[in-house]
């Protein structure tokens, strides 16, 4: 699924065996991998491609589509002055993605936030609990099937 135009890109090349999809839009490179490969991809990105910083981790809920959730990792290389977006998908029934905290410690809070707002479980995370919402909160507000209004509180 990697388009021809991106075959020569060094970042795509480094992740060629893991990537399931890649695109280059709006001057931004996006590479998608399977959930089980994402940690390995991140590790390569950090070590081989010198992306020192994980800028953010977040999710996107594509409700009717299955696998429903996209988990999006934004990375920045200060040395190379470039940015990269990694993506993986998680199914709607039991969304689970391996944690990135072993590679980037900054993923800790971002994954907690994603867990809190989307209900995506990051397996292996040291402290998987809500961060924004109160502890006893039911539901995950950023899911598309979570109502905007209503007597939820």
């Amino acid at each position, binding site marked *: 699924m990697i388009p021809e135009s991106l075959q020569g890109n060094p970042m795509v090349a480094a992740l060629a065996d893991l990537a399931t999809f890649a695109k280059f839009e709006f001057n931004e490179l996006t590479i998608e991998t399977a959930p089980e490969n994402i940690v390995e991809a991140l590790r390569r990105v950090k070590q081989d491609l010198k992306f020192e910083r994980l800028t953010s981790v977040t999710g996107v809920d594509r409700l009717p589509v299955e696998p429903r959730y996209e988990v999006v990792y934004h990375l920045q290389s200060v040395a190379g002055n470039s940015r990269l977006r990694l993506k993986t998908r998680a199914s709607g029934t039991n969304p689970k993605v391996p944690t990135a905290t072993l590679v980037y410690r*900054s993923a800790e809070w971002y994954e907690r936030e994603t867990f809190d707002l989307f209900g995506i479980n990051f397996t292996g995370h040291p402290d998987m609990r809500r961060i924004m919402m109160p502890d006893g909160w039911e539901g995950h507000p950023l899911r598309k099937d979570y109502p905007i209004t209503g007597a939820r509180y």
Partner: protein
Amino acid sequence: MSNYSGISNPTDVHRDHQVHETNGSGHRTMVLNMGPQHPSTHGVLRLLLELDGETIVKAAPDIGYLHTGIEKEFEVKTYQQGVTLTDRIDYLAPLSNNLVYCLAAEKLLGLEIPEHAQWTRVMLAEFTRLNSHLVWLATHAIDIGAMSVFLYCFREREEILRIFEMFSGQRMMTSYFRIGGLALPHPRGWQKRVKDFVDIFASRVDQYEELLTNNRIWTGRTKGIGYISLEDMLDLGVTGPMLRAAGLKVDARKDTPYSSYEKFDFEVPTRTENDVYARYLLRVEEMRQSHKIIKQALEGMPSGSHQADAPGIVLPDREKMKTQMESLIYHFKIVSEGFRVPEGEVYQAIESPRGEVGCYMVSDGTQKPYRVHWRGPSFGNLQSTSKLIEGTLIADVIAALGSMDFVLGDTDR
């Protein structure tokens, strides 16, 4: 008598996940619940501190007290309406947030913004930086006990807010930058207002420095405090002045210039000491650089339209709207249902006063964003709290927290 060790105070009973007594070492420690209502946590940050005497053994920040669901709200507002939400995220740097949101949407739309609007954006973004840094310096100084600096800084901030009010009609929640340009053309007499400010500001910064920079107590309280290694900072997602105070020259204004920042002559100051004092000096220097940028923007402000030439996206003039049918239709359509944005996803990062603020915008081709993720700099910076303050004294916690310059609205969104 209650027992001071462990969490026995009734206020402590909830959310005490991480901090507990470490009786194993034989030391009796005390858990101090700092915040969410504490004068030095600048809002509603809660810190659980485990203390041995006055030394912090373990610190666990607890956030989320100001979570307002802004990201969810973006999804039910049209693109243009979303601008008003961004002000509320980081209420000390509203225009930076306006800017990143507009830039992201404009990237998706492929809009070309006129020079005039771009320069105004730069000028006001730098004013925002000054505004934010002034509040930071004021609160940081009063945290360390220098209370006069607080009022001196607010004196200048007041002037900046007046300038904001002049441009946008609002002091804090300006929403002045809109997708496609600016909300309003420049007000009459803005040059004089800005020039008055520019003329006086440099000497005012000297005043603050005179009170603090060489003050023995100030240096004693700030030098060597709040050290965290550069590797840890990168690993924990810290951005902005904290990184630059560690010697890493990273600034989106230089690295990936946006809104014609490349046309301005300014330096990105860095320091290497990587402590509270270095961050203080760095921010003061940043204020001087912002002053320089504002001066250039004032002197070289190009003339032109304040909005892009994109009839379906920007609101037409009142004049045209009342004379031309087409404009009236556009106006009606934009106001009632917004405009469609092509499908795609972008991540736009700019340099806010606090660090990298990023806007990840996903569009599904409708009038409303499918998903907006806000990468607030405070959220990333706050992750380093534990690392920053463990092993220091309580008084250093105040100094170190102050040097991070976080805004809880930005953290919790």
